[in-house]
């Protein structure tokens, strides 16, 4: 039964990573939508910032987030399988 704590830690880390990633995505989209009007007053690369975020900025951030969370999850999985072999 020595693998139980390791397994639980692995579960918690996986769940936490998934929740954190999703919360970041939804919070960013909701914030960009809520403040779209005010952000549009600011210019960025000759785009209004509110439009830029929804059309491009957030999408680029989501791609980065998708690859980042994949890498983090692989790290979590590796530490779990190494711990399991001990």
């Amino acid at each position, binding site marked *: 039964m020595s693998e139980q704590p390791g*397994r639980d830690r692995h579960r918690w880390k996986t769940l936490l990573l998934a929740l954190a*990633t999703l919360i970041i995505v939804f919070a960013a989209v909701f914030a960009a939508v809520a403040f779209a009007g005010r952000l549009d007053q600011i210019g960025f690369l*000759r785009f209004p910032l509110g*439009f*830029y975020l*929804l059309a*491009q900025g957030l999408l680029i951030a989501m*791609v980065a987030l998708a690859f980042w969370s*994949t890498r983090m999850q692989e790290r979590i999985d590796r530490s779990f399988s190494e711990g399991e072999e001990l």
Partner: protein
Amino acid sequence: MSSSRRRQANPHLGAYYGILTSAFVSLVISLAMFEQLGWPEMWVARAMILVPLALYLAISLGACTLNVEDFFASGRRVPPVYNGAALAAVLIGGTGFFAYTGTLFFLGFDALAIGLAWTAGLIMSGLLFVPYLRKAGAYTMPAFLGQRFRSRPLRAMASVLQLPPAAFLLAAEIKVAALIIAMFLPLSHQLAVACVAIIIACVTIVGGMRSLTWSASAQFIVGAVGFAVPLIIVSVLLTNLPAPQLTYGELFEPLKRSETVAGVSPSAPGELATALPHEQPRPSAKPFLQAFGAVSRTDFLTLFLCLTLGAASLPSLLARGGVTSSVADQRRSVAWGVFFVALFAISAPALAAFVKLLVFQDIAQAPASALPSWLNDLSAYRLLFARDANTDGAIEAAELFVARDGIVLVLPMAARLPFVCTVLMAAAGLAIALAAAASHLFTLAGSLADDVIRLVDPRSEVLPRLMVAWVAIAATSLAAGVFLAFAEIDVMRVAIMAFASAAATFFPVLLLAIWWRRCNWLGAMVALGAGFATMAAAVAFGGAPIAGQFRLTTVLAALIGAALGLIGGLIGSLLGPKPTPAEQAYFEELRDPSGDALHDRPQRRTAVAAASQ
């Protein structure tokens, strides 16, 4: 390990697709030269549409298989990038290719919810569902639910409830593909529908998921090249830089000016159902950059959430959940899918802005007597009309009728690019539509065959199992073809309906099945039923007011259905029996990222036993 050796992808895959890409590029270049040498446009169009079609069919034939694992899971050896490309093609589809760009043309800012939702939905699916479906390794999503809860009726029920999302999308994609074929080949609409139905049935029957994967990779390449080349050329013409995504911001000033000249003034948001543009040509009445001028802030978020949940639980995407060689590869493939989808979602607004600027500058600011010559070409294709209704000598925005699904084809014509660019764009859209249509067809028919028909005869041998699938695929594509030959559908509304029903029906049950140990078959059934009933109610009321001002639109019904499904699933599970030890063990095993797919273990044991005898 012997299994890992077996799971290795073909090492020449990169070379094959490199050759394919260069062959397609040389086809485009040769056709461009032939056009300059005086080939009639008709021949250029036919070559550009037919040669890639022959290529897809040849690839599918090359990937034909009689092996069950190849047929249903592409042999579990697809490299992540290729699966990501196929995921993106299926998610965007011909509907996204033509209707999303068109919606951006009409609504500008307000349409961005759709592109954001695709990307967010795919991320959500990759975090919450896909790795666990890969570990389970079931060939279809209903089969996963059946194994998770040890319940055959649940499996059949889930398979039947896949009908709305998969069949709606199948119909939409076939229609998009048929429109393109009828536009550039001398075929009537009915014949074009029949052609598309036959092509996707052939692709799907000869090799199932295996031929789907490899033809979809080719179709993705054709789609990406065909979309990017005209867009980049126009970007160079307008902004001197070949990066449309970065540079279209500098066109906003001239765009705003021409919108003002054409008489487009800021609008107030209406109801979502009427705000989304229809298929028939109509004037564009909202400034591109105005935030929430057609769709209100709340509707924007509702649409975003509905499509996000729908994309996360879309059966055709989850059906690809078992095709890579490991859980880690499956995660990576979703990340690549997010990348490809985001790339399209970033480029589409640039395309819409270019088209709007070109059209408004050239038509809406010219005297009605001296309209550009390309307007006649576009009118001949029924993509754009201008008539000076109030005879004031100028065309205003209200007198310019634009077809929503033709915006991508308007771009090369309005920029006066050679005709080959127009058919290149059309071939790209056709490729993506075919990839998506074949995938929806396989998801629907493969699941009906394997999850429902086999209930009657569960002990069928290898060949009969595939034969059942072949018959189901042929019958489904025939039914879709017959339906489309007579029915008129608006592809974007149908696609939104499909995403909404996927969100309402499958999101809650998958969330509970994968993340809640206590969930049992009763809870899963209640969750499926509650979501489906809500969507059915929305369709029955058809958006009419139910109580006071409250209207149950499709999009809203999806969110309510998902919430009711979750609540129903919780209550049903708590009222039902405690999960058996076998179910609990299955739940535990799902979370272990290493090792074989759970579905493959009995087969492997049988194979080992047979080998040792």
